[in-house]
Structures are given as structure tokens and as C-alpha cells.
């Protein structure tokens, strides 16, 4: 199974080619802008490194968030474009799951954090299990202090992974049993590893099911022009 992973959902972007569970080629960079300029050259580079042709691909997996809306859309649009033209399955995967999968702990409970800006983070808790991490409950969108509250009330030994540097210093300060650790960002190779077995078993849905996981309604700022709802003639 040859899988292309695409991740542009957070402050770092990456592309990876995975065959079975082996990472064949990857490219990455930090920065949350110009994903459109990065992606295809990075994919092109990876295919050249691997000596693969696009037609040899068995599937594409993309980070659908939570994360930065524009980055998520660029990743999904790119993955959709490739999958449409190549006629291969496309799958979506969570940025938080990708973080938890790569968390380096044997016993600590894992909280994965992704910065979604405007004073909020997307978080989810995971139980470490052999070879990975098991999601406990659906991800939540919380304010910084709310996240501190979650950690304070948890008696377990905890490892926080992901965008913890985006949190104000006071959020994690002085918490007992809480450590921060790697990885800082989700990665395309983790996404690919998560789905490679599914593709082999033919477990993938319709492409239309691959949609951004925003967790937040769009911001709507009305124009500044004085607005008469009912009109002058009412």
C-alpha cells in the first residue's frame, strides 16, 4: 500500500510517502502561510526521492483539523484534486490523533493541543496503548484557562503534546504531574501510518465525507454601512 500524507493544518506543514508502514520520503517546514506554494513542490520532491509515479499511489490522507481553517482547506483541496484525477481513495484524519500517535510516553495520559487562534485551543485526551494512543472523548474547543482547569482536576500523570507553546505561560505553570513534550505538530507520516491498514482492508468512505473539521462557526463581520433592516419605506 502506497499512501501520500498531507498535513497543512497547523503552524507546520508536511508531506510524506509511506509504503506499508515504512516512511519512504518526507518534506516539511514550519510556518502557517503560503501552503499553496509549498505543497505541490514538496509532493513533487517526495515522489522524485521515492522514485514513484503518481499513478502508483493507492490512497491519499489529509489532516482535516482541528487547526487553521485556510491551511486545512488548502490541504483538503489539494488532496481532493489528486484523488479525483488519480481515481484513488481519499481519507481525512484528525490533527489531534496524529499528535497523540507520536507522543513519546509509556504511561502518562496524553492531552493533545492544537492552536485555533482567538484565545482558544482544540484539545483531546488519549490513553497510551501499545503502538499508539486511544482517544477518550470527542475533541473540545476550550479557552486557555478552561484548559488549565481540565489539567488541574486530573490526578493522573499527564503529557501535553502539540501547540503548548502557543499557550500563555500561566496556563501550565505550577501544575502537578503535568509535563510538556514532543511532538509539537502533527505530521503527514503519522497520518499515513494511521490509515495505511484501513486502505489495505478497503475501509474508506466516499470522498465527500472528507471535510474540514472546523469546530467553530464562521466569523461574520457586517459591513460598516448603516443598515436599515426594514427599509426606509416601512
Amino acid at each position, binding site marked *: 500500500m502506497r499512501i501520500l500524507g498531507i498535513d497543512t493544518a497547523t503552524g507546520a506543514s508536511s508531506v510524506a510517502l509511506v509504503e506499508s508502514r515504512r516512511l519512504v520520503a518526507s518534506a516539511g517546514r514550519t510556518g502557517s502561510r503560503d501552503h499553496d506554494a509549498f505543497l505541490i513542490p514538496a509532493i513533487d520532491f517526495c515522489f522524485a526521492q521515492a522514485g514513484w509515479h503518481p499513478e502508483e499511489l493507492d490512497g491519499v490522507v489529509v489532516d482535516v483539523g482541528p487547526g487553521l481553517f485556510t491551511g486545512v482547506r488548502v490541504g483538503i483541496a489539494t488532496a481532493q*484534486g489528486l484523488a479525483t484525477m488519480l481515481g484513488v481513495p481519499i481519507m481525512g484524519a484528525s490533527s489531534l490523533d496524529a499528535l497523540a500517535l507520536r507522543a513519546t510516553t509509556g504511561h502518562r495520559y496524553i492531552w493533545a493541543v492544537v492552536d485555533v487562534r482567538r484565545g482558544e485551543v482544540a484539545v483531546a485526551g488519549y490513553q497510551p496503548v501499545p503502538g499508539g494512543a486511544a482517544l477518550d472523548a470527542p475533541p473540545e474547543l476550550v479557552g486557555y484557562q478552561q484548559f488549565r482547569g481540565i489539567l488541574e482536576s486530573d490526578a493522573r500523570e499527564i503529557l501535553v503534546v502539540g501547540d503548548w507553546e502557543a499557550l500563555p505561560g500561566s496556563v501550565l505553570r505550577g501544575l502537578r504531574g503535568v509535563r510538556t513534550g514532543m511532538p509539537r505538530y502533527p505530521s503527514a507520516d503519522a497520518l499515513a501510518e494511521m490509515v495505511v491498514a484501513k486502505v489495505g482492508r478497503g475501509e474508506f468512505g466516499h470522498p465527500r465525507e472528507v471535510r474540514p473539521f472546523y469546530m467553530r462557526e464562521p466569523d461574520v463581520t457586517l*459591513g460598516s454601512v448603516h443598515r436599515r433592516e426594514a427599509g426606509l*419605506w416601512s
Partner: protein
Amino acid sequence: MSGPLVLAFETSCDETAVAVTEGTRVLSNVLSSQVDMHARFGGVVPEVAARAHVEAIRSLTHRALREAGVHPDSLDGIAATRGPGLVGSLLVGFSFAKAMAWSRGLPFLGVDHMEGHLFAPRLDFDDFRPPGVVLLASGGHSQVVLINGWGDYRVLGQTIDDAAGEAFDKLARFMGLGFPGGPAIDALSETGDPDRIRFPRALADRRYDFSFSGLKTSVVTTLEKARASGTLPSREDAAASIQEAIVDVLVQKTMNAVEDHGVEIVGGGGGVVANRRLRTRLEEEADRRGVGMFLPRPIMCTDNGAMIGAAAAFRLERGERTEWRAGVDSSMKL
């Protein structure tokens, strides 16, 4: 004479549009309009627009190819609007198109949205051939462009503040007519008196430039005052008078360009050119001067994929390509 077979995407604002064109021949031209989504906000909300594009683009692509009866393997190139427009919206079509092109090793071309509009008259009229002058007027732009030849353009004049379509939208909102404002004012004006109120025509001293913000202030002040004194004109008269002020200026500046540059061909593009009064006035003025007026059907005036495909065909035939590392350019200029 046929040209390259192109799959083209236009997602610069609030229409997800996909087309298959062969040179300037349109094989399919489909779109998913978001007007209803934005109507309740009284204008285009960028985040709402970007979300809708990513939902619609995949299935629209299949529809465009199916309606054209074209297999992706027979395409000669893939094109997408690169700018100007809303960056979040542009990124969806541009990324999708670029990925499609790369996966089959096809030529890819990022197209200037305004150049697309310049090609729209050519899609509807075989004899629309430069040199000529084109009036581009939409919710985002108002320009008078001189086409010396395809690929050789000079923006003679443009708006110094609001675009013409923006003026229609803002004034319609003020009048309680909803969004989009152009069609609402167009419809009401049909039975209104365009001479009921004489609103100002700005920048009479400049040959080609527009300004519509003064008109906005004047309409608001005049109508609020009339309402207070119990002399409010009918909605129809107000709409027709506003429309006349906008149309007058658009026609005048376009004709200035026609006279100054001695062209015999005039075209139009952009959503405002779907306005019926503007079309009538442009036709009349062109007739009076003995020049040809080429106004595309309204569906070709508003944003569409076919115009991007036609512009791309021209550039692909000249051997132009857009590099994989190119990004969108939301403030692209002709």
C-alpha cells in the same frame, strides 16, 4: 479553428465555477452560487465563501467533465483564477486545480480574473477582436480597459473608492432591498422615474476614473431628509434615480475611452454589466457613434469558469505555464 482543451476553475469570490473549454468554445460551464448563503449577512462573508467552495468543488468538477463529455486524460491543460479576489476562496480552486494538473503532468495556468472577464465577450461573439475598449464592473472592480491585443492591456481608469457593484449593494442594503443589490435595484427601477432625483455624478473632470462613495453619502442624506420631511419618493423612483447616476458615469467614462482611442469595438464584463439599463444605454451610445457593442449574456458577465478557460487557452498556446511553487495573488493587477 479549435484551441487547447482546458478544465478551468474560478473561485475568487462567491461562485464556485468550473468549465471545460476548447479555445473559446464552451463545452460545459457549471457553477454553484452562494448568493443565498450570503444574503442573510447582507454581503459576501469571506469565511463562509471559502467553506462553501471546498464543499462544492469536487462534485462540480465531475459535473463539468460529464456535461462536456470529456475524459480527464484528453485535457491539454488545467487553469484556475490566481487573483484578484478573496484569498481563502482563491486558494481552494487554485490548490485543487494545481493538484489535478500535477498528478497527470498536465500544463497548469494561474489566470488573472480580470483577464478572464476581458475574454467573456469573445466567448459570446466570434467577431469581438482587439483593439477595443472593455468596461469591467462588478462588486469588486470597476475599470475601463483598453485591449490593444490579447495579452496587451492598459487599464485606462478605475474606481478610486467603491466598485460600482459595491455601490449598488450598499445602497440596496440602505433601502432595505437585501443582497445582492444590483438585481433588486434593476427590477424596481423598471417602473421608476430615473429623473425624479438628480444624484451627483462624480469625477466629471477625469476622463476614465470612477468614484461612488460620494453618491452613497448623497443618497443616504437626501432620502433620510426626505423621509423626515414627509417627501420620500417611491421606492421605484429612488431606485431608478440611483441606477441612473451609476449607469451615467459608467457609460460616460467608457465612451470617453472609445472616442479618445478611436476603437470600433466595445465590450463589457462583470456582474454590473448584467444590469438592463446599463446594457440599453451602452448599446444606444455605441450606435450613436457607429461602434460595435459586444455585451456577453448575463451568465457570461458574472463570474464563470469558461472565461478563465478562454484566457488560459490563449496563454497556454503561447507556451506559458505557471510554476508549481506559485501561490495565489489576491491583489493581482492586469
